[in-house]
């Protein structure tokens, strides 16, 4: 029942807050949301303590018939690949609730409710083992995110919200057709049965293509990434955090759960193309990030580049590559969240995201700068931060696969360092840029708390990633064994 609690507790709390709270009772709403997110987070912790790292089988399995007419089941379970994401989602929700504390002043109850419901839905995506259940959760996440961007977003929020919704819907509707096709072939929506289903190469390529539409948009991969910078820039800080830390991972996770095991031959066959797209994302988007004048846009592009690493790691079919990619996903969850929160801290004070409006922030906000620089370093993959572990593993695996690809992937480290450090230099160091910067106040206890928690995880995971890799190791090996066997 642990997974059900993880999914439904935040949703039920979210609904309670939505119906009982109003703007006249902000204090109550905030406390309630904090308690809800903490309870929901605590509900996921038994997954970590009770996880058996020696098996690739699904754990914490729950199965109840949902729609007997189509044999759709409420079928949940996690393995080494998905377990950490459930915990990460609940964790990030706590961060988002705390980060919104004084910042969000209108429709507070709706804001908190949207994030709590979103959290439950995303956990549902990570733990569904029924194709249709997965799809329902996957698409239902669009509704709260659409509202979050549109209600609390920046000046161009309507455009960004529509673009986000329609772009994602375009991909996922084709996936629905593929899911129904698989149901028609196998007479079940059970993903584990789909893994074993025999499919010829044409079917595999088409199914791979349909899933690719949804997941590539969500990841996002070049060239279907254009919704992300808009969404990130316009979304409120919490929205950006969840988007970067969790939502992008839904797509990457989909590759591992659907594309690779269901269509292994098509995956092998199309891998060069996916690798090429990933490298474009890593290098070209890295260059694009370099020229951004808006901090949020810069971090958004950096997210795309980092996710390029993830897809690269998946499609070289090497245990180290896949594990590195998953580590990268988790680590990016912490780092991107921290980066967007840092930008949020500055934005709350200055109401500007333009790099040019800042300069010499270290003089007025020394504590904050210490954190921000740490996260920027982690973003460019400094050893002893979590960013290093994943990127290094993927690069090693890439070199093993093809030396040239390894070299190209490694340029990401240089580009990452370039855009992260250059931004840091322009924003934080040097003389005090202007009157507004001179009037800045350093972070308060609440902000300090969030930053330090994220910093601890970033460094902790960088120094000792073993707990993370141990959990996923057996599952990844099993997955790759499965992918290596042709279905033809």
């Amino acid at each position, binding site marked *: 029942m642990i997974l059900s609690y993880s999914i439904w507790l935040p949703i039920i709390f979210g609904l309670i807050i939505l119906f009982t709270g109003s703007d006249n009772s902000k204090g109550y709403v905030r406390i309630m949301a904090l308690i809800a997110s903490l309870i929901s987070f605590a509900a996921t912790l038994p997954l970590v303590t009770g996880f058996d790292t020696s098996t690739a089988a699904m754990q914490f399995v729950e199965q109840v018939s949902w729609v007997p007419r189509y044999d759709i089941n409420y079928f949940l379970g996690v393995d080494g690949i998905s377990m950490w994401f459930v915990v990460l989602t609940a964790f990030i929700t706590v961060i988002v609730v705390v980060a919104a504390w004084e910042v969000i002043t209108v429709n507070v109850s709706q804001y908190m409710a949207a994030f709590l419901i979103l959290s439950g839905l995303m956990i549902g995506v990570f733990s569904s083992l029924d194709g249709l259940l997965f799809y329902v959760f996957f698409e239902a996440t669009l509704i709260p995110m659409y509202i979050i961007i549109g209600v609390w977003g920046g000046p161009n929020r309507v455009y960004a919200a529509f673009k986000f919704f329609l772009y994602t819907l375009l991909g996922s*509707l084709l996936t629905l057709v593929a899911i129904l096709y698989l149901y028609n072939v196998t007479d079940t929506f059970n993903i584990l049965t789909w893994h074993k289903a025999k499919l010829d190469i044409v079917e595999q390529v088409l199914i791979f293509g349909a899933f690719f539409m949804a997941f590539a948009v969500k990841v996002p991969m070049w060239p279907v990434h254009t919704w992300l910078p808009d969404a990130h820039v316009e979304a409120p800080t919490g929205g950006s955090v969840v988007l970067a830390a969790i939502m992008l991972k839904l797509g990457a996770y989909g590759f591992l759960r659907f594309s690779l095991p269901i269509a292994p031959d098509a995956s092998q066959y199309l891998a060069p193309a996916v690798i090429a797209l990933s490298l474009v994302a890593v290098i070209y988007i890295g260059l694009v990030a370099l020229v951004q004048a808006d901090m949020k846009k810069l971090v958004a592009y950096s997210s795309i580049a980092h996710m390029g690493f993830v897809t690269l790691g998946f499609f070289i079919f090497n245990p180290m590559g896949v594990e590195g990619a998953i580590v990268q996903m988790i680590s990016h969850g912490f780092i991107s969240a921290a980066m967007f929160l840092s930008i949020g801290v500055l934005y709350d004070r200055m109401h500007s995201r333009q790099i040019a409006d800042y300069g010499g922030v270290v003089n007025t906000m020394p504590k904050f700068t210490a954190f921000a620089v740490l996260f920027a370093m982690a973003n460019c993959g400094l050893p002893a931060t979590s960013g290093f572990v994943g990127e290094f593993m993927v690069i090693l695996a890439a070199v093993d696969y093809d030396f040239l690809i390894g070299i190209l992937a490694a340029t990401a480290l240089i580009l990452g360092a370039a855009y992260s450090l250059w931004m840091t230099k322009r924003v934080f160091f040097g003389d005090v840029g202007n009157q507004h910067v001179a009037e800045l106040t350093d972070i308060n206890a609440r902000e300090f708390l969030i930053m330090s928690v994220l910093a601890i995880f970033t460094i902790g995971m960088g120094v000792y990633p073993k707990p993370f890799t141990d959990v996923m190791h057996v599952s990844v090996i099993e997955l790759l064994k499965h992918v290596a066997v042709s279905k033809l």
Partner: protein
Amino acid sequence: MQSIDLIAMLPELVLLTVACLLLMTVFMNEPQASDEDIFYAPRGTELAYKISLALLLGLSFAFGLQAVDQPVHAFNNLFVVDALSSILKSVACLAVFVTLVYSKQYLIDRGLFRVDFIVLTLLALMGQCVMISGSNLLTLYLGLELLALPTYALVAMKRDSALGTEAAMKYFILGALASGFLLYGMSMLYGATGSLDLDEILKAVGDQRINRLVLAFAVVFIVSGLAFKLGVAPFHMWVPDVYQGAPTAVTLMIAGAPKVAAFALLFRLLVGGLLPLTQDWQPMIMILAVMSLVIGNLTAIAQTNLKRMLAYSTISHMGFMILGMLSIFDEHAYSAALFYAVTYVLTTLGSFGLLMILSRKGYECETLDDLKGLNRRHPWMAFIGLILMFSLAGIPPTVGFAAKLSILEALIDSEHLYLAIIAVMASLVGAFYYLRVVKCMYFDEPIQTAPIEGGLVVKTIFTLNGLFVLLCGIFPATLMALCLSAMSTTLLS
């Protein structure tokens, strides 16, 4: 005539009796009733309204309980009561009940809250029931006309409205033309097969000796007539004008319950009577469906008037629904279409209900601007509106998704993969204009600031309506199973 015939028809007889009694008695006892405005009867109307509501709710239950394993053929198989008819009639009565609840204040504000309105509504419902139960060409046609004639009058009810008069005129002329088409097709069918009874026709058209050319013509005319009545492209021209021109309460009378009756008509004629001719009518249905999906969704984008937008949305939804008729004798596919029709009606009730609740005396809520900032004015109503719009767009976890899912499954099952892809792409386009409504409700600042009226009863029903759309999306199994069993028992006979 045997007593069993009368028992099979008992609920309809009660409905008819009450309608006639209301018409005769209520305004006769009214002291103020004058010759100029004979139907104006303020005291009696209230009573008639309450009686009608009780009757409708009772009938809805009665029809629901009528569900039978073996179909009952009454009046020499003119009239059939089977599982399908019981579920459809129950939904139709419920839909009219909800419509009347939503429209009371709206009608009072516009001086339309009169006995004749209620009586016409009940008569139209009577027509729908006859149509749903018709198993003979004559009964079907009779039911159709009994539905159509009171509806023409209802659309024209607001006599001083130019838009309303134009809509009624258009509706009447095109509706009469469509009836003519249908009747012409039916007469050819009768000429070819020598029978008006659908079971007899079914047997006869399977016979190879019948003149195929006449049958083909009959099918063309019948399908065209049906397309008119369903409002699918390219026979959809009347839909936007009528939806926009009629008072919103009447729009809901047209947009709600008659859709399930139209589904029954479609099913009885095409599957019940013309099943051996699937090669003839399925390509036509396919073209109609695809055109409706494309035209309905694309044109809806350009609309700023909500009633018009919902009209185009209806066109696309009807297109989606008839995609379920493309399987050959498969109760799963037909039950998917039935499920789609039922859930669509329930969602539509809510959407027009919202418009009526937001309207008040001297002010019609009918453009996108009128919905702006609803979340600020009344968060709960905006939330229900959000559910309804996402349901129309087919986004999980609402019932609209479950309905789309079952149709798509049926399409893929019958190897119409490309149609499934067209359908999902059309719903992508459709998502845009539903999202725009949500955008107006949530993202924009209010233009209207007047407090929202609407009594407790109306708001409760509206809430139940919205929650039903959500809960039925989360737990669709029961309703799906109901539709499937209704369809299976009907097809078995």
